[in-house]
């Protein structure tokens, strides 16, 4: 069964069509990468699915339920997690308070296991605003996954991370996936794609351009051309 299904969704900003009739199916257990050049509409597609943007047309089904009329927090509470492109942790709260906010309770065990998983156990009383960039990204991912959603969207989770940090991020995502979390990830970084992607969709000029396994996508000439700016 599909966990998420998009049917012909479109989004216009003024006269400009940022996302154009995209249809997409995500299976439970997948780690789907969505790639495409800057401005392809990847972040916009995310925001349409979770309810930050309204759709101009189309349907969003989560667990076979129409969710496009629900508000952002209502969709999240169905079992969806999200990390936006810009790292957005609450800089005036401590790391632990950030996580309490995300888990909606004070289950200390779960919070501690997440602090450990993300290597933040020494930072739990540090203000999130004082963390390094890498740790902010991890805290942000932790926020989007700690409530154990079925489906998690990550918009550029490794932006600005070093090679080692990227690898560690991939490992964490893989672990969570092993525990049953389905991921949809927007990335530019082909290393992490090679490391963890189970399937890949390519977005170009707001349209779905190609879908396939990581191997198929990486060996596809047209996809390479899009990235090089030829198409």
């Amino acid at each position: 069964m599909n966990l998420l299904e998009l049917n012909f969704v479109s989004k216009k900003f003024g006269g400009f069509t940022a996302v154009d009739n995209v249809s997409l199916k995500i299976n439970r257990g997948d780690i789907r990468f969505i790639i495409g050049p800057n401005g392809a509409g990847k972040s916009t597609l995310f925001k349409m699915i979770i309810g930050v943007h309204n759709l101009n047309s189309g349907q969003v089904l989560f667990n076979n339920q129409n969710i496009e009329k629900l508000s952002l927090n209502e969709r999240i509470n169905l079992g969806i997690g999200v990390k936006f492109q810009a790292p957005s942790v609450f800089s005036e709260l401590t790391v632990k308070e950030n996580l309490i906010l995300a888990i909606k309770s004070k289950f200390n065990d779960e919070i501690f296991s997440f602090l450990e998983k993300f290597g933040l156990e020494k930072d739990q009383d540090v203000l999130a605003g004082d963390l390094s960039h890498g740790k902010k990204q991890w805290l942000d991912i932790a926020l989007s996954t700690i409530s154990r959603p079925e489906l998690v969207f990550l918009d550029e989770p490794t932006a600005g991370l070093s090679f080692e940090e990227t690898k560690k991020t991939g490992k964490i995502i893989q672990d969570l996936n092993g525990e049953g979390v389905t991921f949809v990830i927007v990335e530019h970084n082909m290393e992490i794609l090679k490391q963890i992607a189970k399937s890949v969709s390519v977005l170009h000029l707001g349209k779905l351009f190609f879908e396939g396994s990581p191997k198929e996508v990486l060996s596809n000439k047209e996809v390479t051309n899009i990235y090089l700016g030829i198409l």
Partner: protein
Amino acid sequence: MLKKDNIFTISVFIVLLIIPILFDDFYINNISYFMIWTFISLGLALIWGMGGILSFGQTAFFGLAGYSFAIISINFSDIYAVGIWSPILALAITAIFGAIVGYFLFYGGIYDVFIGIVTLAITLVLETFMAQTAGPEWTVGNARLNGFNGMQGMPPIGIKIGEYKFDLQGIGQYYFIVFLAMFLLWLLYKIKKSNFGLILLASKEDRTRVESLGHNVKKIQMITFSLSALLAGVSGILYTNWGGYITPSSMGLIASAMPVIWVAASGKNDFFSVFFGCILLVYISQTLAVNGAQYAIILMGLILVIVTRYFPEGIILMLKKLLTNKFLSKK
């Protein structure tokens, strides 16, 4: 365990508790009056300091509560315990009105500076409306609204049981206000440390991110707005009870600017600083106002300018932190 920065709170309340032993009724009544304004300020600290939402019209709720209390208690002055339930009913009306305004603000997608504009408009509309109710046709039951002269002659808060009669006045009023302030400060600190408070604090930074963690931010903001209206209402009712009158100018432009200045100057992120700073600033205003109201207004404006420029955190909060570090950090 006693936390370091509680020491100031506790010291100030000890002083407040022993003041009646040292001073006569005149001073006690004056200090009661200064403390009456702390509740509207604490409400503003809640919605603005914690929630990041600047309401410029808290006086609307102050006035609504004051007038409701006056109208209800004048009309039902013969009914048993009106001096107890009329202020409570007036507070309920105010909180509901606050929730309705909050609903239209937050569910209507009004944010930032527009909240200030809308709330200011509400208080000015109420002021203008009440100011034109001078004619004899403007009555609610037995209560004449009385235009810009305002309403008088409401029975005080209190209760009569057989021979025994208690009115909220003098030293009783003083202690009532002190204990109410202690209780509300405690409650506000509890709210700040709760999940509710965490959501509110976080929504100040990034509303969408809080929603994306599954929280209904609009609802939380609406509830907070209603609570802040309630606190403004506490001030309005106590003010009406204290002086025995309520006038439209309590909802006017100058009146509505005052809480914003007190809260900003004291330190909007710390409830105790707001409580203490508000008492000091109202005291200063009143002292100056003896020589003409305009001096007090000019000084408050000046304080606001200086504070935003040089002490953006607030003077009292800054002093509190300074003293805490100086005297208590070596332990």
